[in-house]
């Protein structure tokens, strides 16, 4: 019943379990938390290591001797310009205010996604499951195409880019400096179990832009009576302050933390309950209302509070979400840390729904079809666009300067070795 009980697989199973439990790469020879392997918390989750046998070489660090002899920060910029003897890193990146992007998030941030072609018989073919092994090794998450740290082009054809890709376009010296510290089921409370996997040194690394996006699990659970298990504003305040203390002790001066508020999840029931789930499309026999009831009955719903036919429960969940968002806003407005600047941003689902409508879309097209819960790739990228516009307009200092040497970097170093 358990493949890991086979003696020849026991050791590798143990190592994989540890990597997933600690949210650190499975394959990481120098233990610097960066990997040359994609899945199992490798470079799908944080910038690819360019030397996995040297722990002093990793994305996001300040360059060693201006990277004259080696690429110590893996941004693909190194060596000396033969025309004047100046190291390229000094020439192109000095004073450019490099920034790394770090996401502390849940399944939304990690981009949880079950491909509809895996469960839709009418679309199934030999090609349908080719990406299933990678998805399983990434905990059914797709951080490589997520709204915050995605580095691959969108699979949905939308032109908007992730926050990492925009930060990289703003300053090519930021190449590979991304960390997606997210986990399915993460909340303000259990973040302490994996925040240690964050890699940032006060002494050696560039400042970071940290996005705190625990957008659901403080009000979402699968319990028969979900309300008593929701986080209270007092508890949230205490958890977030602990997180900030930890960030303050790890992040270089000039770093920022941007809190995302919680969405109002009533749009789930309002837009989906009478629509057919992919399993019900062939015979028109399974609606999202039925799926929600099934998951609630088994107590495995990702969010009983919002995925419910009970209007009062949905309203109570939204009310608590609003209180928690207010708490985050209050923390951003009133707390001070010497190394960190704090900001708060609403989770603007209403705005992106409007934007999507203007483009001729329907709100239900922004939700993951199989789980009927998570915002999908299009929604994530529209949110990234909204985030970027707001930060650029209101807090541009968070993003660092635009690098005037970007064209030269591209000319000399091409794609900078990929992500």
């Amino acid at each position, binding site marked *: 019943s358990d493949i890991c009980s086979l003696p020849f697989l026991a050791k590798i199973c143990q190592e994989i379990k540890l990597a997933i439990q600690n949210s650190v790469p499975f394959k990481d020879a120098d233990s610097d938390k960066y990997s040359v392997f994609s899945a199992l918390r490798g470079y799908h989750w944080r910038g690819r290591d360019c030397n996995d046998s040297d722990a002093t070489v990793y994305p996001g660090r300040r360059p060693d001797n201006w990277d004259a002899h080696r690429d110590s920060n893996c941004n693909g910029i190194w060596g000396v310009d033969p025309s004047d003897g100046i190291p390229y890193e000094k020439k192109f990146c000095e004073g450019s205010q490099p920034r790394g992007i770090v996401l502390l998030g849940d399944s939304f941030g990690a981009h949880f996604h079950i491909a509809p072609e895996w469960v839709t018989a009418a679309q199934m073919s030999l090609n349908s499951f080719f990406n299933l092994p990678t998805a399983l090794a990434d905990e059914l998450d797709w951080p490589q195409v997520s709204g915050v740290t995605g580095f691959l082009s969108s699979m949905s054809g939308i032109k908007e880019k992730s926050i990492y890709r925009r930060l990289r376009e703003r300053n090519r010296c930021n190449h590979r400096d991304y960390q997606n510290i997210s986990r399915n089921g993460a909340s303000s409370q259990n973040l302490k179990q994996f925040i240690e996997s964050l890699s940032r040194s006060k002494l050696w690394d560039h400042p970071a832009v940290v996005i705190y996006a625990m957008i659901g699990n403080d009000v979402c659970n699968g319990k028969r009576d979900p309300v008593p298990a929701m986080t209270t504003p007092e508890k949230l305040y205490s958890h977030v302050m602990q997180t900030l203390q930890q960030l303050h002790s790890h992040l270089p001066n000039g770093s920022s933390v941007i809190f995302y508020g919680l969405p109002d999840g009533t749009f789930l029931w309002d837009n989906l309950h009478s629509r057919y789930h992919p399993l019900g499309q*062939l*015979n028109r026999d399974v609606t999202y209302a*039925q799926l929600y009831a099934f998951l609630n009955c088994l107590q495995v719903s990702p969010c009983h509070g919002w995925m419910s036919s009970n209007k009062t429960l949905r309203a109570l969940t939204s009310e608590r979400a609003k209180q928690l968002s207010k708490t985050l806003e209050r923390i951003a407005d009133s707390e001070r840390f010497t190394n960190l600047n704090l900001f708060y941003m609403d989770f603007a689902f209403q705005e992106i729904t409007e934007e999507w409508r203007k483009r001729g879309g329907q709100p239900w097209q922004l939700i993951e079809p199989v789980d009927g819960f998570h915002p999908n790739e299009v929604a994530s990228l529209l949110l990234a666009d909204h985030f970027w516009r707001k930060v650029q307009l209101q807090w541009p200092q968070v993003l660092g300067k635009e690098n005037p040497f970007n064209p030269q970097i591209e000319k000399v170093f091409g794609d900078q070795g990929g992500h």
Partner: protein
Amino acid sequence: PSNSHTCVGCVLVVSVLEQLAQVHNSTVQATMERLCRYLPEKLFLKTTCYLVIQMFGPDIVKLLTAGMNADVVCHTLEFCKQDAGQPLCHLYAPPKEPWRQTLEKARQLVEKSPALKRPRSG
């Protein structure tokens, strides 16, 4: 509850099997083999699929051929369990006959099946 995810997994897989048979107008046996063929070798996915067919295939064939749906199949094969005092969880609309009668009929079809003695975890 510990067996809840197993129940969701079972209902999902049996639903896909049922619909795949319908789309290709083929037998349940042939459909199970088709589904396993679709899966990649990596992570033992194909091997596991053939193993599952070997263990539970004959019972699934009997039940689906007798017109039972995924809910009934998964309750009969004990991937889904009704806890005492709790409602019986189902994805599809309930059968026309009462649940107890439907499940009784289904259980008779797979009586003495060796698969029912195997563990349901993992």
